[in-house]
């Protein structure tokens, strides 16, 4: 009797062991856990996009706790699990537009409205998307996959998730992680290329202070912006519609409570859910593939191409501008959306050469134009390849 009870205990213990994370762990899980820890370290130590890297980094830890697939509805990819339910906002693409609503409600387009030619820099930086698209095709990706990978160059996490969930859901985890990682790493990625492509004289260009923009102009902007961009690219409607709607809530002056909710509790909630689920989607078994490695490489390239295209476009544009109206090419990098980090980099690099030259407000122009540009580019890719 005692012997059979002991053997029962032993069997149970053995069974329990097969359920533990230790038993089910693979080297891949530890690699991914290390990646998650690096994200958390970068966010806390260097404050690289902490709002994104902390949820994503911790999500990676959650997603890479090994477990036995026993239908317990634990993992993100198990239908009906809590994580799976939260992940539906990513797979069905409704988190990104809500993030855009919040971005619209917190973005001041004054810099862009006061100097509208800066919009063209935001357009030029989208070369990063299509440069990566061309290279991805050469590497053997299908056109829809190449389009989804290319959007990393838009430096816009929600747009990348939105587009990849439609064009190549199988690559979404890698694309999202790559986009957010490089957005966090813009302080490392961009400055060398900004310095490489500019002369010391160009870096000292002082731009005219932006004029004061009236509230009427600010109200008109989201309405005209929406009508124009969406009539041209209707497939960008979910992102652009919400972006401009959020901005109108902010600028109308009569929907303050709605604007505050959109740019406060709503965007915070969605950011938490988006970050944690995108992080958790990187289960080693699904994530650690050669394609993911290639996507990371292409992501870096797309950021570099976007930065270079923005800077080079400003230099080219300056050829046609009168003296006194010239643009400092150091704000060219801000054409990639990564708001406001890439604009801050323009300021930081510019201040290294002339501490009294404040480029931040000028750089915010192409920066927010980049948000519009990347959403338009995403709409085009979706229209062509969706």
């Amino acid at each position, binding site marked *: 009797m005692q012997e059979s009870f002991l053997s029962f205990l032993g069997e149970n213990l053995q069974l329990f062991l097969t359920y533990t994370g230790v038993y089910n762990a693979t080297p891949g899980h530890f690699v991914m856990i290390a990646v998650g820890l690096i994200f958390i370290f970068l966010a806390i130590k260097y404050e690289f996009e902490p709002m994104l890297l902390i949820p994503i980094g911790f999500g990676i830890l959650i997603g890479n706790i090994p477990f036995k697939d026993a239908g317990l509805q634990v993992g993100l990819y198990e239908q009906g699990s809590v994580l799976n339910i939260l992940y539906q906002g990513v797979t069905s693409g409704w988190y990104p537009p809500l993030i855009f609503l919040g971005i619209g409600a917190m973005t001041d387009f004054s810099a862009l409205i006061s100097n509208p030619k800066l919009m063209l820099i935001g357009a030029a930086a989208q070369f990063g998307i299509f440069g990566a698209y061309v290279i991805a095709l050469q590497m053997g990706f299908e056109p829809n996959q190449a389009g989804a990978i290319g959007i990393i160059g838009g430096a816009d996490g929600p747009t990348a998730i939105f587009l990849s969930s439609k064009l190549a859901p199988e690559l979404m985890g890698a694309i999202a992680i790559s986009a957010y990682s490089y957005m966090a790493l813009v302080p490392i990625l961009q400055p060398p290329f900004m310095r490489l492509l500019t002369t010391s004289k160009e870096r000292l260009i002082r731009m005219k202070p932006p004029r004061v923009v009236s509230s009427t102009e600010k109200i008109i902007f989201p309405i005209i912006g929406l009508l124009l961009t969406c009539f*041209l690219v209707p497939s960008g409607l979910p992102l652009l519609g919400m972006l401009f709607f959020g901005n109108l809530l902010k600028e109308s002056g009569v929907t303050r409570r709605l604007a505050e909710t959109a740019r406060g509790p709503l965007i915070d909630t969605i950011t938490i859910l988006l970050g944690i689920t995108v992080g958790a989607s990187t289960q080693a078994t699904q994530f650690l593939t050669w394609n993911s490695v290639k996507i990371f490489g292409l992501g870096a390239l797309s950021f570099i191409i976007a930065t270079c295209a923005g800077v080079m476009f400003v230099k080219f544009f300056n050829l046609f501008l009168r003296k006194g109206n010239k643009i400092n090419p150091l704000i060219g990098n801000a054409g990639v959306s990564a708001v406001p980090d890439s604009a801050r980099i323009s300021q930081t690099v510019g201040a290294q050469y002339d501490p009294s030259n404040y480029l931040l407000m000028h750089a915010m122009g192409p920066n927010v134009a980049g948000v519009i540009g990347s959403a338009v580019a995403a709409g085009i890719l979706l229209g062509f390849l969706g």
Partner: protein
Amino acid sequence: MYKMIRKNTGLLLLTLLLATGAQAQRVTSMRINEVLVINEDNFVDDYGKRNGWVELYNTSAGTVNVGGCFLTDDRNNPKKYPIPKGDVLTRISPRQHVLFWVDGIASHGTFHVNFTFDPDKENYVAFYDSDGKTLVDELVIPAGQKADISYGRKKDGENEWVYFTKVTPSTNNLTLDTNEKIDNFKLNDSRGIGMTITAMSVVFLGLFVLYYIFKQVARLAIAAGKARAQKAGVAGMHEGSSDISGEVLAAISTALYELNEDVHDIERTVLTIQKVKRNYSPWSSKIYSLRENPRK
């Protein structure tokens, strides 16, 4: 009164919007998609019988409930077969199909109509909205139909009608096993140059038009500002330039921001950029003005 009118106007607009939104996903997007008049050696129903059938197709991107609508073979009697309400199967998902057996035995269930096709004549079939008046779609099936060959739209929901030797009840008329768009890009733009040129042109065009419009808006705004200034009699106002230093502007902006944000109570303080010097005086020292509690 004014408030009530405003409230009612808002409600009216909301109702109108909701009605318009609902219209977009109503049964008007249903189409008669494929029919089989003579079924000899083909698809069987749940009773193991072979009969003619009509396939409807939801062309919209939203779910459509055909319950309460009508199917008929009689131009003078649009309400001949009312599709029963309350059956979950009458909810047709976006771009999906539903099949009705034309066997004349309505008692067999929701999807069995109370009329039959005549194999020797021209047949007529129509689909009416739930009001029994709005014709959604109709079809005249030519006489001389052959057994087990269906008559349907070449591609779901489109206008061209063809005969199918391989019938496709409750499924796509044209089987899509590839993505045409992607295949087209693979064939004609394997390097991605075409996509790059097209897409960048559109991005530039969009933002250029936005630039142009806001350049004009800026001109108008500046002109309007000047006119207002002149009207107000403000003399010596120079556009785009100012003698006020950045620090003063920052102080003014901060004050305005604080005022607009209304985060503080009104305090009797002065916002200044001057250094505040307070010399020590025992008369103003808190040490001497605080009172200790008496010890028990």
